Every structure is written in structure tokens, then in C-alpha cells.
């Protein structure tokens, strides 16, 4: 009579190895980073001319007003970035809308996702508030709603109203290139980057005209032409995130 125990143990061992190997293969397959956004169609990009930016902060306020952002959160801070000669240089930092975004890769419920036009969106109804994306973003572009923002937003002027719904407590939020303005403008036949009503608020409001917005896939758009004409750089491009916000440096000549 065969010894059932030995047979069963061997069977179990083979199964264990098989299952583990299979699981491991699955992990390796799944753990790869997600594919970057498809590059057909429109690809929105923003260009900031640092030789013009004077750090006035109007873009910060316009963003806050249009998107009903709590005063404790800044989607688009203006940072000090050194000096050229006597002039202080500033760097406004919206969300980079990376084409290979770490935040999209790590969200456990896929609340952060790519739009076909390159904008990285957050589904605020799906976000569980685990803050993994906040930890993963190299640019610190995401902010968590630690508290509910229920009072009147002092940044929203009396004559206007925000264009998007306010985010509830417990979700992460970030700049979304004013997708609501882009979508509405496109539906009305306008051109984002050219027509102010179809362009992100920060670009429109800049009093010195330091910000530009447009379609990279359109060689005639202002951003394409700017990037062709002048040297630009992106933040931490070495990390391979593929940001879509380009900066034109301020130099001794043009500062």
C-alpha cells in the first residue's frame, strides 16, 4: 500500500512551487509601470517664461479662485529660484502632468488616471485618501484635504464663481490644467492657449504674459513655436517622469 502521506507532501510541494512561481510571474508582469499616455491627438503643455515672471502671485490667486481651492492648499505655488544679476527669478509650479506619472502608477484604486490629451486627472469620488500619490510625487504637486473646507472661500471674488466642485475632506487634489475650461472652450469652438476662456486661469491672468499654453502636437501653436525658438528645460527631467511644463530660463540678457 503506498504511503499516502509522502505522495500528498510531494504533490503539495510541487503545487506550492508552481503557485509561487506563477504568482511571482504575475507580480513581475503587473508591477511594471503603467504605459505612458498615448501621444496621438492633442497633447497639452504649458510654457513659463522665467525672464518675464516677476513673482507677483496673481496666477496663484486666479487658480485658487477658479478652482475653489482652500486657502490652506496651493495648486500652483510661485517659488523663488535664485537670481540673475540683480533680479530675483521665480518659478511657478503647477502640476507637471507627467506623461509617466508616479502618482498614476501607485494609486491603489486608479483614482488618478491619464486623459487622452495628457492631463492627469483625479477622480475625487474614487480616491480613498491613502496619500500614496502624495508620497510618490517628486514635485510635491499634490495636497491632501486634511480637513473639510466648508466656509466661504475668501479667494473667490464676489463677482465670480468657481468652475469646479469643491473637494470633500479626505481626498487628494491637484492642478488639472483647468480641464473644465479647456473642455468647455473646445466644445464652443475655441482654441486653448489662444482664447482666454479656453485657457487655464493661471495663463490668462498673468499680468506680464509669462505663461503660455497650447497643443504640442500642433506645430503652429504658441508653445510649439516657443519651444522651438528658445532653450527650455523641465524640472527633474532626469527622473523620467516626462513633465509637460517647460520653463524658459531667465538669462543675463533677457532677465
Amino acid at each position, binding site marked *: 500500500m503506498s504511503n499516502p502521506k509522502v505522495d500528498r507532501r510531494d504533490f503539495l510541494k510541487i503545487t506550492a512551487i508552481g503557485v509561487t512561481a506563477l504568482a511571482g510571474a504575475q507580480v513581475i508582469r503587473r508591477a511594471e509601470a503603467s504605459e505612458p499616455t498615448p501621444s496621438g491627438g492633442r497633447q497639452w503643455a504649458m510654457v513659463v517664461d522665467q525672464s518675464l515672471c516677476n513673482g507677483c502671485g496673481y496666477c496663484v490667486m486666479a487658480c485658487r479662485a477658479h478652482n475653489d481651492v482652500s486657502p490652506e492648499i496651493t495648486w500652483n505655488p510661485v517659488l523663488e529660484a535664485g537670481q540673475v544679476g540683480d533680479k530675483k527669478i521665480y518659478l511657478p509650479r503647477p502640476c507637471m502632468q507627467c506623461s509617466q506619472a508616479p502618482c498614476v502608477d501607485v494609486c491603489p484604486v486608479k483614482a488618478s488616471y491619464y486623459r487622452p490629451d495628457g492631463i492627469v486627472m483625479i477622480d475625487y469620488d474614487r480616491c480613498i485618501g491613502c496619500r500614496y500619490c502624495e*508620497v510618490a510625487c517628486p514635485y510635491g504637486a499634490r495636497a491632501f484635504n486634511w*480637513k473639510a473646507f466648508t466656509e466661504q472661500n475668501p479667494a473667490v471674488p464676489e463677482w465670480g464663481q468657481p468652475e469646479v466642485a469643491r473637494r470633500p475632506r479626505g481626498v487628494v487634489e491637484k492642478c488639472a490644467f483647468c480641464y473644465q475650461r479647456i473642455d468647455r472652450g473646445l466644445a464652443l469652438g475655441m482654441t486653448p492657449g489662444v482664447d482666454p476662456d479656453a485657457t487655464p486661469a493661471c495663463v490668462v491672468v498673468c499680468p506680464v504674459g509669462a505663461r503660455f499654453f497650447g497643443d504640442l502636437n500642433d506645430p503652429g501653436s504658441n508653445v510649439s513655436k516657443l519651444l522651438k525658438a528658445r532653450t527650455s528645460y523641465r524640472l527633474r527631467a532626469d527622473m523620467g517622469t516626462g513633465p509637460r511644463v517647460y520653463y524658459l530660463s531667465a538669462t543675463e540678457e533677457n532677465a
Partner: protein
Amino acid sequence: MKIRPKLSKLSPWLAWLIGLGVVIAAGVGAGLIVFWKGLWITHLTDLIPWGLWITIDLSSIAVSAGAFSLCAAVYLLGLKRFQPVARTATFIGLIGYSMALLTLLMDIGRPDRFWYAVVYWNKHSLLWEVTMCVTLYLTVLVLESLPIFAQFEWLKMRWPKLAEKMSHVHHYAPYLAVIGLGLSMLHQSSLGAVYGVLKARPFWYRPDISVLFIISAVAGGMALTVFASMLSARLTRRASVDDGLLDRVAYFIGWTLVLYLYFRFWDALSMTYTYQPGRTEGLQLLTQGPLSFNFWVGEILLGIVTPMILLLYRPTRTSQLWRMVALALVVGGVVAYRWDTNISGLMIVLSYLPGEPTVEYAHYVPSLIEILSGAGVVAFGLLAFSLGVRYLKVVNHSLTVEEHENRKVEAKKPAPA
């Protein structure tokens, strides 16, 4: 008749329960305040969004690793004699994973959406993978623990058929052990990889962090199991242990610590070469900065080296006191490792402005709310284990041997003519 408070009748058991009850009540209160008011009352910030609760969550999962390793040893490697220890470990695993879930429930911004990860999948996300594996493994643990709950006397009396069915699950233990091994290997190391895949955090961005997590989890999980068994046996007659078994497990833990130290050593040493913004500062925080005491004394000296020596050197391993001390130190070291890893990476704020990235430091001290709710969760774990020892014979190395004997005897009975 004089009415006097029965303080003189307060048995140690009752005092223990009351003490735990107070801490749990405080924890529940703190947790409710967090649910009601929001996470802003903690000291977590956008720069350090993961703090004490995540550490408790990681540590709970780590010290539950005794379940999968001992069950794998018993059912897949054929080391049947360790089955009683595996039983204790499984129960500890169940408690540990429920502690982790409780802590996570408080920590995520939307506790009402805690089930989203099971429904909405992102196969590329390691945190999703961890959530799925933890959910599935919790199911496995519940199934593996059914025979333990079947030992509940009240249950055996009230629903004997149910108790017998639950006990019968023991028959499927090998299959559950296989699944549990696969799931645990995945998520214990994935917890490390959650940190390890973030290119934005150079101090975390290395492949061996998952290896460190799983090795430390195996060491810590087994250590907690043995420690809890020994402590229960000393404190109550309802728990009985076979010291020889525990001695063998302790010996294995000692060698696991050697492996852990080996990996840890090379991991740290390799980070000292050439300056990399973020990574070098992170290592400095650990070795020279505010975390240095926790690292050198808590993690290395007391967490690895001292228990390694104590557990591999026979005279100290066979001594009850020294073995328990060593095992407690291992568990402490595992917790310290997870705290250090989480905090050191988050404290480093790497600038993204053009030019050489500069480093600034954020700060975090847990708030009272976090400490109270964390302590409440830990107290819940202690309470669950104490009840298990008292009513479910969780630490009872003689019981299962009898059970096996019974089974063997039954199998040898001749068939009725």
C-alpha cells in the same frame, strides 16, 4: 452586611482586562474623534503624510508573519512537530492583520471607501497588490483559525456540529498553507516595495528593501509567536508549552537574524559610496541624525546583534529569561526598522528646482490622538490574544498532540463488521 468594594478580590486577570479596557476605550474615543473631525487633528502633514499609524500597520503585518512561515514549515516542509506553535502563530496572525486593518481604517482619508481597492483595481500599484493580498490572506487566516475557534467550550456545547465542522477545516490546512505562503511572500515583500519603487525618494529607491522587509518580518513574526507562548505559559496554567519546540524555533530565528544582518549591512554600506542627493542625507539621518539612537541602539545593537548572539549561544537560548529578552528585542527591532524606514524617507524633502537638488528636512512627532488610537489598537491585540489563551487554548502544545493522537487512534479502529 457591609458593602465594601471588592478590590481585594481583584484577580490579576481582571486587573489586566480592566487595564486593557481602559486603553481600548481611550483608543476608541480617539478614533471616533478622528472620524468625526478629520485627519487635520493629527500631526501628519503634506510633507509627512504617513506616521505612527502606518508604522503600527506595517509592524502588525510584520509580526504576523510567523503564521505563514510556521504553517509553511509544518505543512510544506513536513515539520509536523511544530504544529502547535503554528497554531499559536496563526492566531497571532489573525489578530495582527485585524490590527493592521483597524489602523488603516483610521489612516485613510475616506474610511467609507475602504473596500474600493477590492472593487477598483490598479494592477500596477503595489499598494493595491498589498491590499488585495492582505484581504485574501485574512480570509485564509480566518479559515486556518476556524479549528482554533472550534476549541471554544461554549461553542462546543451550544453548536457541537458546527464546532466539529470548523475543526474539520484542519484537514485543508496544507492547501491553506500553500495559498498563505504565496500570498504572504507577495505582500510582505510588496510592503517594502511600496517604498522601494519610488524614484522620487532616493533613500528608499532600491530593490533590496523588499528583501529586508520580508526577512525582518519572518524573524519578528516567529519571535513574537515564541515570546507570546512563553509569556503565556509563565503567567497562566491554561497555557502549556513544549520548551524543546520553542528552543528549535528560537534557534532558527537566530540564523534568520544573521541573514537579516548580512543584508542590512550591505544595504547600508552600499549607500555610503558617492553622494546622491536625498539618499546620503537619509543615511545620515539614520546614522548621525535624530534617528541615530533608534537605528544604532534600537535596530542594530538591541534589535539584531544582541538577540542574534543570545539566540545562537546555547546557554542563553536555553535560559527562559534570556530567550524571552532576546525575542522581545527582535520584535522591538522590527518595529524600529519600520518606523525608521518610513520616517527617514519622508523627512527628506528633495527640492525639484533646477540645479543640484538640495535637501531640506521636515519634522514629525506623533500627536496625542495618534498615540492614543495606536495604543488602543495594540491593546485590542493584547486583549484578543489573552482571551485566546484563556478560552481557546491558543497556547497549548499538549492539546494538539492529543488531537493528532485521537485521529490516529480513530483511523486504526477496525471497520464495524
